């Protein structure tokens, strides 16, 4: 697969390996992972617990660094980037959605949504205006002033998705976004993500156990024991 800025792929990963040191022992979380994602795709990574899905997402999002291998996301070499560059990269290119929402409990929905804008240095009023607009897009205009404790699981995940989308990232990484939700809420979240993908053209990469996501995926990877067992051709 070609590498570099001329390649059509938004994400290009080759030979990715991640080893965690636990005392004297090294735990291999990923081994020889190859992955390619085109812009605008809805890619799903499926596999059991411990297969390395979250580790892979952390590498793709610049939260962690691979031990070996090559990784380019939106033209940025994440292996060679400095810590400051990775922070900027995450802020400008990546939106994160987690299984347990990871909202700040002390802030209401609107304040949680606008965190990335404030991190980028946008003014308070402008940030709140954009945040309100994004909450409207995920159907939560009426819940702006509610804290996470006052929101249902599905509503909290919608807030998390709105936060992930706010800076118009090139890719949204979702790690088990429906893992903590009942089936009805899970389906509504899936529907929302697909709608945002199709309407706004944002690339989604979702790591999940939920087989319902397979039917909406444009690209699927199956993982086990830190390796990609199945990848689509081309």
């Amino acid at each position, binding site marked *: 697969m070609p590498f570099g800025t001329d390649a059509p792929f938004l994400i290009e990963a080759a030979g990715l390996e991640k080893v965690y040191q636990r005392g004297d022992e090294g735990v291999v979380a990923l081994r020889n992972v190859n992955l390619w994602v085109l812009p605008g795709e809805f890619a799903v990574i499926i596999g059991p*617990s*411990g*297969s*390395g*899905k*979250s*580790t892979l*997402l*952390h590498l793709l999002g610049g*939260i*962690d660094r691979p031990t070996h291998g090559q990784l380019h996301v939106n033209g940025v070499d994440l292996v060679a980037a400095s810590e*400051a560059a990775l*922070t*900027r990269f*995450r*802020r*400008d290119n990546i939106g*994160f959605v*987690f*299984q347990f929402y*990871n909202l*700040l*409990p*002390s*802030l209401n929905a609107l*304040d949680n949504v606008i*965190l*990335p804008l*404030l*991190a*980028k240095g946008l003014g*308070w009023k402008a*940030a709140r205006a954009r945040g309100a607009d994004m909450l409207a897009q995920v159907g939560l205009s009426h819940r702006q002033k509610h*804290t996470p404790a006052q929101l249902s699981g599905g509503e909290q995940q919608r807030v998390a998705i709105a*936060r992930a989308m706010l*800076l118009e990232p090139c890719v949204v990484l979702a*790690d*088990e976004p429906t*893992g903590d939700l009942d089936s009805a809420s899970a389906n509504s979240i899936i529907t929302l993500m697909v709608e945002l993908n199709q309407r706004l053209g944002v690339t989604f990469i979702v*790591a999940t*156990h939920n087989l319902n996501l397979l039917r909406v995926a444009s690209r699927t990877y199956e993982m086990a024991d830190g390796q990609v067992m199945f990848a689509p051709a081309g």
Partner: protein
Amino acid sequence: MFALGYFTYKDLVHDRWRSLMTVISLAVVVAGYLLLSSLSRAFLTAGKQTRVTQNLVILSADAIDPMESSLDGDVLQVARALAPDQIQRVFPTLFRHMEIADSILQVRAVPLEEMPAALNLTLLQGSWPSGSQQVVVGEEIARAGSWTIGSTVNIYGTDFQVTGLVRAADTNLAAIWMSYPEGQRLFGMRHGFQVGYLALAPSADPESVRLSLQADPRIASDYTLYLENAVSEGLNQVNHNLVTLSSLMAIVSLLAITFGIYNSTSLSLAERSYEINLLRVVGFTQARLRGFLFARALVLTLAAYSLGWLALDCYFIYRNSYAPLGISEMPLNLSLTASTSLLGLGLSTAFAFLGVWLTSRRLAMLNQLKGSD
């Protein structure tokens, strides 16, 4: 800047009970520092060396405490005859340790004319005793006992009126002074006294005179001569220890506030690792994160310092007014000075920031938020 303040406020208010406990625990550390510093300074003042005066005192040879001494007028005349050029005047003093108004005080009966002359008492308010059942009191114990001109002091079952407040330049000890005849009547001592004073000429060397008198067999056999300040220090064996202790307390107080504030800030921050990591993931740089954490630590530290300072100030006001502290007839005046307060505030702030900086650095190296795997 506004966002920083807003999020700091939200964070503290959301976790208000933990924030309150943090403030209280920090306030205890602050109060401990202020208390130790104030005690240190009070000890240092109380334990300071008294100056060498032009007075010698005579006590019985076997007396450890002046109250145990027993003298008569002959010894004073013998001493004067031995050094007529060096000794200007001699006079007797009655001496007692007594519990008065719940404090151990010295009561001294001396000739009235010697109070300002040989004993270097300065009249600050009122007048010297002129009639019966009248006393002057030292300024420190007057403050401690809330005595003013005209107050009544009960000594040995007899009420005395306070006619004046005095400052004793040569002693830190708390004392009440009355005329010698008044003391004789009060204690029933027509003959004999406890302490003999030898007021030397200005040109005399006190130590030389003391040694020469002490060498005479008429003195050496039954009496001991001291420099006046040595008697004061001999009465209070803790003087030197107080000075040493005050230095130790000052060091302990500084260590307490620096490490106490640092630990408390660091622990408080470690409990925030989830929020810190989340903010990092959504794009906050280390510098902006530290700005938020510094703001939070500053608010908590200032609140704690104010609370600790206020609590201790109220305590000192109560203590000094109603139940003053003292050690062995030496009153301890506790107060918060500007230098102590500002030093404590500076150290608290600096070490709170250090706690934030070091802990945030450590947290930045730990694993970030985990997903399902």
